[in-house]
């Protein structure tokens, strides 16, 4: 792999991705709960792996947990913000996670969520939905 990078056959970022994927797929336990940290043969170390937050999460917890985690986290996001109004900033967030180990940038994550929720319109989508439901219920009761 190092030779391929040195000869320019693959870029460093692609080489890292290949290394992480091969490490994840080498055995069933690696796939399910992630490979052993800091292996001398693969060089995969969760504390220094960079360039992809999703792969970093998979190395740390395994593929099934991360798929479920991302699904549940996206459920929370969908529940708490209006996707259509924040499409651009959310797309930016997802791509930034894909090309960096930005899941480790605590200051950026803290600022990102503060930015995201401060940009939400009034009232919040949940309250809006509730008020529409309440209106519908009261109309039905009147009829």
């Amino acid at each position, binding site marked *: 792999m190092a030779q391929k990078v040195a000869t320019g056959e693959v870029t460093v970022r692609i080489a890292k991705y290949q290394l992480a994927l091969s490490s994840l797929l080498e055995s069933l336990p690696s796939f399910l709960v992630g490979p052993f940290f800091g292996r001398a043969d693969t060089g995969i170390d969760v504390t220094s792996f960079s360039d992809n937050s999703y792969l970093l999460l998979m190395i740390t917890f395994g593929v099934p947990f991360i798929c479920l*985690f991302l699904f549940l986290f996206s459920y929370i996001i969908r529940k*708490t913000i209006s996707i259509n109004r924040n499409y651009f900033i959310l797309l930016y967030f997802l*791509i930034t996670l894909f090309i960096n180990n930005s899941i480790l940038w605590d200051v950026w994550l*803290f*600022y990102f969520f503060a*930015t995201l929720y*401060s940009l939400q319109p009034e009232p*919040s989508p949940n309250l809006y939905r509730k008020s529409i439901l309440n209106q519908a219920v009261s109309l039905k009761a009147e009829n």
Partner: protein
Amino acid sequence: MTKSLSKNNSLFYQVGFVLFIGSLAVYPYLFLFNIFFPSTLSIGKNTFIFIITAIILLCFLLRWKGILSKLGVGTIYFIMFLALMIIIIRHWLYGEGIDKIFLYHIVLTPLLYCGVAYYYLREKEKKEIVKKVIFCSCLIQAIIGLLHFYVFPYIHLGLSPDGLLKIVRGVGTMREVGTLLAANLYADFILLGMFILINSYKKWRLPQLAVHILMFILIWGVAISASRWPFIVAALLLMLYFKKLLLSKKIISVLLIVLLLGSF
């Protein structure tokens, strides 16, 4: 009883919000604190960063029931349970010690920040305060970056083995990192200020020229980091900002002349 309870809850909410704002204001400069006053915990973490994380955790703990109910108690408990299972399985499979447990914070911190921000940013006034704090932080970061890049580039901020401020002369300019010590992080951080500015400049009733200048400072700050992805997003945001202006023939003509002159 109910009155005193709601008063306490309200007090906790206010205290939590003040801590939240305080954390937002000081967080970007804590990396520098560690250079001037080196202090690292036994777990290898910067003490100042650890303290600020603890303060954000306190914001969460002050209103934990409310935050969990807003995010969905079942969902959060399910994620926590699964993470704990993975830790136990990894301990059983690989014999990992307790020292590795801090590596698992990467699934907790997004939930923590998401929950705290969602809970404390429900009122319009509070959202406006936070927007201003974030925007000022991003602007200050961009100005610090520009000053460093053009005025004193020979001072390189970095975590040298002795943890002290490293001054290197004659090396020349490098990718700008601001006070955040990472070029990509610095660029992505400033970008959040651009998102806020584009969303709020009309509400803030800033003069058009002031918005142009602020936008220019932010995008210049992103450019000196030499990070490709944040720069592409910044350019897209700039296009979004100039969308109306771009439609005018005058602006298109000026842009074409600038591009033409630039090509020589």
